[in-house]
């Protein structure tokens, strides 16, 4: 409780500090100079100067995802704000809590097409959870506190506060967050009856499956522990979305791997064949469901989600449970125990036998190359080099390398895997790694990248060098936009339109030019040493791994296909009717 007179700019910093912010990612400009001036005169908030505003938002996302806290961004008006848009939508799609403060031209110039003016609240309305334009200093403190409240409660997401320059200079009264009550109060507590029904369904299903997502991670590390306990206690198999990896330990035998377009054979066939699908904190995204009408056709579906609008959006479910994933899992665990249910391992024996048959297919198998490095092999060697370490955080860019990383790197803990899922933003991984490393200075932070994606935000290498952030950039370099190439091969008659990068930089020299270290591996026998060097070299390192140019990522459920039409290798490409392929082509 306190009341102090101060400028709007000082209020921003006071509000950040009172909401637990220690690090903010940003880039100065005319319309935020008063805030940067106030920042210069304090020591509480540490500012990380990125090289492009888009990098600031992804860095804040990495920071938020790896800590469970709200990530914070400060950028200027106009181009500062528009550069931030992609990151905001990325955070919106993946439910990452952010507060982004944008400068705005003075209130009397708004609407005049002033220098560096953009209709920031208009532009960002559909890509934020909520946004504000603060025109009155009297509303500033409350708005900033509410922004944090909205970002972190309910389904988390990005919140933007647009702040005209004159309001930053204006003097007003600052009040602390505890003095306000906010009307935004999303549902948190699940309905007990629904939980009891869910437990009853789990207790009698013959082929049940947990399908868990990023909601479990957003709910906090306790939710992941509860999920693990519940899965082990019930003896039911568990699959995860891309966003949910790490909530349930990958090393547990009950884990079937990721499901969906590039998910494992066993996870997808189990999803297709189960009679009860327990979805916790996931949203039946089109990458997961494939052809909706053929998705998990024989199952009853339970859907636990904090966002009621996610329920029955894509797939009709039988038992909706609106509320926090962690709370729902705790209640389910409690009811399961109270009602004295036994582990279902024995009763589910036929189901597990079936799953083991699918597992035996060994869907991630690939043909080893020599001397050419297969990308999967590179990730296996990276995985083995990291074995036994408890301090590893992985970020990725977007494309084939991202899917291979999801398939081949095991995550046993939540908050260790940062990837752009919903929006699929190339260029996410390096700035995200910067954010993760800021939050965990001693940790091993690795950006698994492709050579195309990394070029989208390579400028953040400079940020990593400036702040002595020892991020490791592991480039699987096949000279192609690999996933684009894969789709062109499978769906567009092998017409590789514009997916080859004919002029790539020398990544070793590039790393050195930035002031980091560059390493290269071009053959199988160079790989292990290069990985060891990457891990041991202090400071930012780029390891450029030359991999097989034409390798494709399998398994793959082609667009418009059902889970049981999963392709395991190139030869599985169906010569089926062209109509089906046309249908796949129009989907993304």
């Amino acid at each position, binding site marked *: 409780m306190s009341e102090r007179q101060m400028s709007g700019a000082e209020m921003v910093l006071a509000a950040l500090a009172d909401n637990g912010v220690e690090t903010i990612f940003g880039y100065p400009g005319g319309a935020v100079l008063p805030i940067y001036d106030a920042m210069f005169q304090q020591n509480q908030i540490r500012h990380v100067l990125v090289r492009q505003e888009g990098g600031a938002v992804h860095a804040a996302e990495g920071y938020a995802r790896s800590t469970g806290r709200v990530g914070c961004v400060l950028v200027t008006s106009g181009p500062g704000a528009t550069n931030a848009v992609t990151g905001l939508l990325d955070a919106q799609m993946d439910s990452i809590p952010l507060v982004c403060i944008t400068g705005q031209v003075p209130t009397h110039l708004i609407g005049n097409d002033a220098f560096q003016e953009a209709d920031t*609240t208009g532009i960002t309305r559909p890509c934020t959870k909520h946004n504000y334009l603060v025109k009155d200093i009297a509303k500033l403190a409350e708005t900033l506190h509410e922004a944090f409240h909205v970002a972190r409660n*309910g*389904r988390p997401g990005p919140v933007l506060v647009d702040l005209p320059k004159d309001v930053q200079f204006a003097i007003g009264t600052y009040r602390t967050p505890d003095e306000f009550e906010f*009307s935004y109060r999303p549902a948190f507590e699940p309905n007990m009856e629904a939980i009891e029904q869910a437990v009853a369904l789990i207790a009698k299903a013959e082929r049940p499956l947990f399908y868990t997502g990023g909601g479990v991670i957003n709910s906090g590390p306790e939710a992941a522990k509860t999920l693990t306990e519940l899965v082990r206690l019930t003896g039911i198999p568990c699959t995860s979305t891309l966003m949910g990896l790490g909530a349930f330990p990958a090393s547990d035998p009950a884990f079937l791997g990721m499901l969906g377009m590039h998910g494992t054979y066993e996870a997808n066939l189990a999803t297709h064949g189960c009679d009860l699908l327990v979805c916790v904190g996931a949203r039946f995204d089109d990458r997961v469901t494939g052809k909706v*009408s053929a998705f998990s056709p024989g199952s009853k579906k339970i859907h636990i989600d904090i966002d*009621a*609008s996610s*329920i029955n959006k*894509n797939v009709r479910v039988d038992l909706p449970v609106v509320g926090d994933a962690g709370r729902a899992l705790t209640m389910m665990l409690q009811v399961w125990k109270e009602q004295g249910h036994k582990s279902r391992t024995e009763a589910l024996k036929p189901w597990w036998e079936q799953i083991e048959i699918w597992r035996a297919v060994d869907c991630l198998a690939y043909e080893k190359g020599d001397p050419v490095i297969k990308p999967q092999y590179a990730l296996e060697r990276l995985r083995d080099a990291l074995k036994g370490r408890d301090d590893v955080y992985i970020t990725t860019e977007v494309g084939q390398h991202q899917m291979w990383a999801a398939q081949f790197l095991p995550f046993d803990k939540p908050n260790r895997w940062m990837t752009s899922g919903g929006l699929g933003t190339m260029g996410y991984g390096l700035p995200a790694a910067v954010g993760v490393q800021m939050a965990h200075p001693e940790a091993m932070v690795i950006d698994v990248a492709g050579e195309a994606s990394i070029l989208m935000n390579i400028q953040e290498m400079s940020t990593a060098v400036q702040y002595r952030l020892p991020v490791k950039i592991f480039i699987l370099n096949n000279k192609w936009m690999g996933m684009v190439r894969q789709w062109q091969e499978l769906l567009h008659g092998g017409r590789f339109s514009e997916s080859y990068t004919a002029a790539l930089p020398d990544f070793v020299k590039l790393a050195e030019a930035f002031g980091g270290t560059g390493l290269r591996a071009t053959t199988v026998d160079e790989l292990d040493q290069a990985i060891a060097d990457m891990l041991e070299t202090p400071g930012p390192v780029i390891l450029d791994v030359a991999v097989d140019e034409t390798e494709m990522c399998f398994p793959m459920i082609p667009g418009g296909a059902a889970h049981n039409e999963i392709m395991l290798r190139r030869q599985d490409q169906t010569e089926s009717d062209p109509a089906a392929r046309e249908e796949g082509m129009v989907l993304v």
Partner: protein
Amino acid sequence: MTDAGNPAIGNAERIERHTLAVLVVNEPGVLARVIGLFAGRGYNIESLTVAEVERPDLTRGQGLSRITLVTSGTRMIIDQIKTQLERLVPIRRVRDLTEEGPFVGRELALVKIVGESGAENVRRGDVLRIAEGFGARIIDSSESSFVFEVTESTEKVDQFLAMMAGLGRLEVARTGIVALSRGPESI
């Protein structure tokens, strides 16, 4: 306006029309949020009315506006619209009047009828008889024209316009409906 059916959900389902009452905090941009939601997700708006219904009180400085919205879609889409509206931060309450029981809906139309070429061509007798039947009030008249005000359900307004259409050239301004549930229950 088209039916923006999500193909994933199946088009076999019947299209329903629902009238929603939505209480929102009266702040800048709130209407843009609601309309943007419909535009961005391809939902249908058949009519939308909005006005402040609760004045801001002195401490909070926030008033409430009520939006009456008529939309159509499959059951799943209608449910999506409601839950998507509910998760907007400045939205206080969303009620589906169509689903929750009987309600009354009224809209106001101003209707100008003009004779084709001079007053003698407006069939004044016919026009006035029809207007009387619908309880329409004359709020302006000239030698060759009338302006009527009619407040009725959408269907009744449609009927009124259909009958008038044969009697002269029409210009119409309609508000779209405002609606309240019947009985003692309130939103």
